[in-house]
């Protein structure tokens, strides 16, 4: 059975319907989400004013994420799963691909890297040269590592070892260090701590070629360093007992590797979620707009909804699948 409304009947229905306040409320509520057939407009929640409000809300949330670590340090941070073994494997794999010799893990360079990381946490800086002018070479020389060539790469806020090495490879100056034929040895530090209020993991990579070629770390020494890193207690500093005849520079603490330490709120997940929620909400309303307008034959005098939707889908997909946290220096 089919019923066709004539123009007069239809206008009577509309008239009756308009006299019922509850129906009007329902109509108004529905059109927060669906386009208006009569006004030929998008849903109220897709109006220009609503979009401006979403932008301001995102700005406010980003402001809270900036302000919160200053009030409660460490509550926000970057979760990570970075290990020295993986960093060494990926670094040497890259060198092997470039036809270069593999680097051997050296205990003195490892200690120097740990000291550098601890110094950055202690003095709250993120740079190759500390605020008091200490250079990377000072940490290396402090470990009695006499070198011909030396270099340093830094990274922070990364979630895994592969991304750290990939990020260094994407940067010309870091890549030069990573693929330099002038180095024989390497040292890593992966240390957790709070910097600028955010719980994070700093990665320090130090390269060197000892003046005396006979001093290049042996396979045994490399294994010892790796085992020490693997079995180390979480973020503990183990002080070497001072032995007779040991110079002060040799009494530097041996830092152990920090195991993954997750903050209360992972800032990467939090910001991605905020963007996905707002982008997803607007995207859903745009998709509803396309579907409902087509179904009801609504012709609106607006911009192209499909274009907005397409761009939004691309942006949200990029945020989830392309953007990775982390900065190299």
């Amino acid at each position, binding site marked *: 059975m089919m019923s066709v409304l004539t123009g007069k009947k239809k206008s009577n229905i509309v008239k009756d319907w308009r006299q019922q306040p509850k129906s009007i409320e329902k109509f108004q509520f529905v059109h927060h989400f669906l386009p208006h057939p009569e006004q030929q407009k998008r849903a109220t929640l897709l109006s*220009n004013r609503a*979009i*401006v409000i*979403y*932008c301001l809300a*995102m*700005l406010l*949330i*980003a402001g809270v*994420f900036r302000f919160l670590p200053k009030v409660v340090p460490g509550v926000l941070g970057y979760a990570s799963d970075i290990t020295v073994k993986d960093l060494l494997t990926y670094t040497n794999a890259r060198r092997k691909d470039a036809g270069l010799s593999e680097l051997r893990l050296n205990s003195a360079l490892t200690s120097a890297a740990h000291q550098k990381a601890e110094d950055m946490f202690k003095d709250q800086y993120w740079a190759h040269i500390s605020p008091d002018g200490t250079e990377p070479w000072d940490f290396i020389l402090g470990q009695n590592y006499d070198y011909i060539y030396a270099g340093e790469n830094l990274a922070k806020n990364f979630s895994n070892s592969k*991304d750290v090495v*990939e*990020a260094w490879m*994407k*940067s010309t100056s870091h890549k030069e260090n990573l693929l330099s034929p002038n180095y024989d040895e390497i040292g890593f530090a992966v240390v957790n701590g709070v910097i600028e209020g955010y719980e994070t993991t700093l990665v320090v990579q130090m390269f060197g070629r000892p003046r005396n070629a006979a001093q290049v770390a042996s396979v045994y020494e490399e294994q010892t360093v790796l085992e020490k890193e693997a079995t180390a207690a979480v973020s503990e500093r183990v002080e070497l007992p001072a032995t007779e005849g040991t110079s002060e520079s040799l009494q530097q603490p041996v830092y152990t590797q920090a195991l993954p330490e997750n903050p209360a709120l992972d*800032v*990467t997940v939090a*910001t*991605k979620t*905020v*963007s996905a929620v*707002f*982008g997803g909400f*607007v995207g859903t309303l745009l998709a509803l707009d396309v579907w409902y307008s087509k179904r009801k034959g609504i012709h609106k*005098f*607006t*911009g*192209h909804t499909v*274009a*907005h939707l*397409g*761009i*939004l889908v*691309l*942006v*949200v997909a*990029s*945020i989830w699948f*392309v*953007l*990775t*946290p*982390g*900065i*190299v220096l």
Partner: protein
Amino acid sequence: MKEKTDTHLVEYAVLLSLAAIISLLFYYFRYDHRVLIFLSGVASFGYVLWGIIHHAVEGRLTKFIAAEYAVFGVLIFFLLYTVLSF
């Protein structure tokens, strides 16, 4: 009518090409947040410009439509900036 459809297709092809180029650049520079923030700005501005030119060519450009593209451009930028600034 056919001419209008052709123009429409060309304009959408331009938008798709720009989106593809920006996506590739995004992937290439995925570890450099400063470049990505710059690219986000370029992409947002490009989209606003595309919308305005597209509607001007169609003869349907109004202040309201221009404002709509502007706020969508800002929204796109903020969606990316919220993630990239941390």
